[in-house]
């Protein structure tokens, strides 16, 4: 294995990581499950490619700087998610899930019919602008943004929505608004990931953003552990590398992948990190929680009267 090959895998992992971090906010911290985030990636990919593709080689392109492509791709995905959220965020439980699936697939099918961008055949000629450094910077920004958001009253309000929606309402939290903000941020992340993806592959096709891709993102979030940013980071690296490492087995690697997904769900549903963070403060927090539990148990035993279960 040479460095270019490893670097390629890392870049792909870094791109996936952006989308996974966004989905982590929506799923892990706000408690909403989406099977349509590949659709937001598609929007980012196409809008980004449209902005940056050189009009000399591809007539559909505008030839503007890459930075603008990132901004526009993220913004476009965020805007679309706003309208989707308006009509679907009031749906209960798995119906929201089904709605995102519908929207995700609809977005893909629409791009299938946009001949300007090559339709179903795909669109070559996206400039190769996703450098290792650019992806690394984007990942760092994505992590810091998310970590700071989560550790603020806004993030705590989202977590409250995940934990107990009605209690959150009663605690004065505008549940719909926080769900919406969470959805928009996650869509912007997915859109930005799409821009990087397009400029890494240099060829995009609606097929790349199918339901399978959306599922993959959700699987990574769950694999990493709901409500854990470090889990999402690790999950994105491991689960992007795994199919690549298995590439030697060619045909069988996706069979293993499917089996692994079932195995993870069946055996360790808390995910890699299970809601904890791999940071000094995160570890302290978990230690404090364990300690508190031990003390509480000791206190109950000392009182001699076990509290009745109800």
């Amino acid at each position, binding site marked *: 294995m040479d460095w270019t090959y490893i670097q390629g895998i890392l870049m792909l992992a870094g791109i996936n990581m952006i989308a996974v971090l966004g989905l982590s906010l929506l799923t892990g911290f706000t408690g909403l499950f989406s099977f349509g985030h590949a659709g937001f990636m598609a929007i980012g990919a196409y809008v980004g490619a449209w902005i940056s593709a050189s009009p000399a080689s591809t007539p559909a392109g505008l030839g503007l700087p890459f930075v603008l492509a990132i901004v526009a791709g993220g913004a476009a995905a965020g805007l679309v998610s706003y309208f989707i959220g308006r009509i679907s965020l009031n749906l209960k439980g798995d119906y929201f899930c089904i709605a995102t699936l519908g929207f995700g697939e609809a977005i893909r*099918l629409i791009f299938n019919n946009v001949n300007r961008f090559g339709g179903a055949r795909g669109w070559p000629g996206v400039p190769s602008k996703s450098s290792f450094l650019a992806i690394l910077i984007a990942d760092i920004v994505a992590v810091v943004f998310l970590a700071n958001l989560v550790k603020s009253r806004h993030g705590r309000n989202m977590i409250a929505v995940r934990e107990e929606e009605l209690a959150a309402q009663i605690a004065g939290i505008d549940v719909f608004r926080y769900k919406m903000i969470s959805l928009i941020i996650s869509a912007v992340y997915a859109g930005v990931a799409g821009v990087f993806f397009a400029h890494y592959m240099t060829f995009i096709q609606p097929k790349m953003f199918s339901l399978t891709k959306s599922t993959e993102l959700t699987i990574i979030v769950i694999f990493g552990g709901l409500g854990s940013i470090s889990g999402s980071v690790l999950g994105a690296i491991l689960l992007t590398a795994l199919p690549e490492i298995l590439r030697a087995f060619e045909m069988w690697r996706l*069979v293993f992948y499917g089996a692994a997904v079932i195995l993870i769900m069946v055996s360790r549903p808390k995910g890699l990190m299970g809601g904890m963070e791999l940071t000094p403060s995160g570890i302290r927090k978990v230690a404090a929680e364990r300690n508190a539990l031990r003390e509480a148990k000791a206190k109950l035993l000392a009182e001699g009267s076990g509290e009745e279960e109800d």
Partner: protein
Amino acid sequence: MVQFLQQLINGLSIGSVYALMAVGYSLVYSIMNFSNFAHGGVIMLGAYFGFFGLTLLKLPFAAAFLLASVGTLFVAIIVERIAYKPLRERRAPFLYFIISAMGASILLENLVIATIGPTFRTYPEVFPKAPLELGPLAVGRLDLIIFIISAVSLTLLILFIDKTKLGKAIQAASYNVKACALMGVNTDKVILTVFGLGGFLAGIAGVFFGMKYTVYPQIGNITTKSFIAAVFGGLGSLPGAVLGSVLLGIIETFVAGYLSSQFRDLIAFVILIAVLILRPTGIMGKVTEDKA
């Protein structure tokens, strides 16, 4: 007018295949409250079982047909045992079921690619291609047979659910699984039956789908549309699944016939989104008020 009737018959034929698939989604949803996305993989296997029954084993059509449906019955049950039973026992949230289902779907699809290969295969001609002339109408023999067998199978299914003891247990469990378990209903048996029934019909649907179009590992993606039909009709409702499927089949054929075939796949998702906005519980679904 002739074109209209022709389209209607086409729509009914494809709609009835959707119905065979959709009831599988709906049955599972009614008991376990999750969307079993592995169902598409089971349908795909049904198409392959039928295909190899006819070509490799040189079975007569009826035997190949039976092989396919009994084969998928077992596949559906095996999927339940491996991917869902442990989650059921742990009372995992519905999302874990969905992800596990997605895993099973990825596994089945790629197992077929790895062992049989990704190529498209065409069913041998079982029924003569020449259409039946009914007055000015030319009805495809295959379409007619598909429609009749589907209608008979669905009727039998509904009779089973309505008349037999096990069927009644399924109905009861769809209202309240926990209460049923307390009343002494063997919920494990109910769940196996539900997967068995869904699997059996998936085999039939797979064979018909393969005969009408072709067989390939990604057939499962198309079955997403039958899932949409189940949502359209009201997830968890059998008559709803049938009605939603037939309507979707007809709407699709008309859109393809009168507008553009490019929009055929898109229309299903447009319907899905419209249903979720206007009436998330579908045409026949129960509307319940939330209790705090």
